[in-house]
């Protein structure tokens, strides 16, 4: 499992919104929103890679760049050894077949008037795949079996509203599997779903991944599901990765103060915490990506920041051993999380 499937290098996405007339008249300058600001990582074949961070850290934008739904400002994306950063229409379509996206709200992505059979046939027809109708139906039945909607024949004739939340997410997953993708990008696929369905879906996605040898990019702000679900984690803050490594290592031995803060905020089902006001290592909200702090971009919220953190050039990812990388210049001095 050490062959790289997807590699992004120094990926950036800077949005420059147009000024409104009023802003122009007021002599306003264009703002540059640095949503993704120099992100590099590789995902191995057969790996589940988690991208974690609070709201506004740039996770979805990174996912969209990888899906090629938006173009990067700079940087490269390599897939299966091929540079796919900028490709022609045919190549892009081929890439989108290999890299599929699972949406947060599976209901919204399905035509309510289509039976499940038609929901699943649609991508095959669009991509002109799997020969005649009988062969296509064969593929649909196989996909339903892959996501454990059995017996598959029974689900073919149902409409989306006749499915439970978990079954709907299974159908949405089957729909992405139909085209035999190599990789799935899942952006908060379970964050709005209640916990028993969430467990069901994560369990199913993991089984599918094992059975078919797929590669996943899993985007979330929920470290508890990431621990269960992923092999490696990258923690993102304000458009950059501040820590990256094996999931267990990141959660048991977090180095970066931001990762430590994310971990401290996670609720756990234990008694005796009701009367406690939780000590949160960081306060306030994430700064605007239109106004990124100097030096280490986390210094404005970091409990351990010194003047040097604000003035020195931004730290790059450093290797702490065991494939554990971090971007904290003071990592030797800051206390370990309890």
């Amino acid at each position: 499992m050490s062959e790289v499937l997807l590699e992004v290098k120094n990926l950036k996405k800077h949005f420059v919104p147009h000024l409104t007339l009023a802003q122009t008249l007021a002599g306003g300058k264009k703002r540059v929103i640095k949503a993704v600001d120099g992100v590099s990582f590789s995902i191995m074949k057969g790996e589940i890679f988690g991208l974690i961070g609070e709201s506004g850290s740039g996770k979805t934008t990174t996912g969209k760049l990888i899906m090629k739904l938006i173009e990067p400002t700079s940087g490269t994306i390599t897939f299966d050894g091929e540079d796919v950063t900028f490709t022609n229409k045919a190549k892009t379509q081929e890439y989108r077949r290999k890299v599929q996206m699972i949406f947060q709200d599976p209901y919204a992505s399905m035509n309510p008037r289509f039976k499940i059979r038609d929901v699943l046939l649609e991508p095959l027809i669009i991509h002109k795949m799997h020969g005649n109708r009988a062969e296509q139906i064969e593929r649909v039945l196989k996909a339903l079996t892959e996501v454990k909607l059995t017996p598959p024949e029974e689900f073919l004739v149902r409409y989306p509203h006749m499915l439970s939340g978990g079954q709907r997410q299974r159908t949405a997953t089957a729909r992405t599997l139909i085209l035999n993708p190599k990789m799935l990008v899942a952006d908060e696929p379970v964050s709005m779903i209640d916990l028993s369905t969430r467990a069901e879906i994560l369990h199913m996605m993991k089984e599918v991944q094992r059975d078919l040898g797929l590669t996943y990019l899993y985007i979330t702000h929920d470290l508890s599901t990431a621990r269960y679900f992923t092999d490696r984690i990258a923690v993102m803050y304000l458009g950059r990765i501040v820590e990256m490594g094996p999931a267990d290592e990141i959660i048991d031995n977090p180095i970066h103060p931001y990762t430590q803060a994310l971990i401290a905020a996670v609720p756990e089902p234990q008694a005796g915490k009701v009367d406690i006001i939780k000590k949160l290592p960081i306060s306030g909200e994430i700064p605007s990506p239109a106004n990124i702090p100097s030096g280490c971009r986390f210094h404005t919220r970091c409990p351990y920041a010194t003047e040097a953190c604000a003035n020195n050039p931004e730290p790059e990812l450093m290797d702490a051993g065991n494939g554990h990388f971090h971007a904290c210049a003071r990592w030797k001095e800051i206390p370990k999380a309890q």
Partner: protein
Amino acid sequence: MENLLEVKNLRLYYHTSKGAVKALDDVSFSLKEGETLGLVGESGCGKTTTGVALLKMPSPPGRIEKGSQIIIDGTDIVPLSDKEIRKNIRWEKISMVFQGAMNCLTPVYTIGRQMLETLNEHRMMEEKQAVELIKEYLGHVGLPPEVMNRYPHELSGGMKQRVVIASALFLKPRLVILDEPTTALDVIVQAQIINLLKELKKTFNLSFIFITHDLALEAEVSDRICVMYAGKIAELGTNAQIYGKEPLHPYTQKLLQATPLLHKKVDTLAFIPGTPPDLINPPTGCRFNPRCHCTMEKCFTEEPPLIEVEPGHQVACWRCVK
């Protein structure tokens, strides 16, 4: 401590063309002054319905059925007229932060204007006085007064949720129902909001009903936990009874096993196969029987009563009846 709220045999049915959806079927619980009661359970088990029932504002075609009692501060509010409820109960004694309310702020009005409207709906006061009150309450939830002049899209999710919480506190209610107040927020903002709620509770001597499907979060917030399934209470116990040792109802046990843990790596997450039942024709006997892993014959024929197995700990499961 006095009981601030007593709910007795509460039934709320949605009378649809296909039949009555028995969304709440004989629910009884109480709440003490200053206490937080958690309502948990899967989607559709009746959490929101319980909340709106207490405000006497079920969404149509819902109706509170005969025999239900909702006693707040010694008065049963079920027989009260709409006018009396609006004047003396809603927002004055009980208020609610609705599920998804932060995303329902009107995009074209300033926060100040929307808060003024909420205030005016419930109590007439001079504009100047109202503005002062709004500023005061923005302060209580950690927001600067300038927020009044901003539009919803100029606020982060956490800030919008603070605005909604401030609006629920204006008229000094005794009980605030919080329906999934942090579900759409990230973990850091969630933790900040939970801390804020705990502080507000002390400052204003409030009682809370805290609704969520997240059992881990409930552990950090609620003194007592009420686990609901298919419109009924499956288990009700103190925080220690539910989280300190193994809970008693198979449903609660399964829900806890389905909760991913940060500090423990597990290979598989248990999940409850199947889905909650149709509430127009719920299963005979125990409503959980189609999904339960340890049923007995009786579970399919007779509905288990909610019985007290130790002080403060109630369970509706035949296996717990000696």
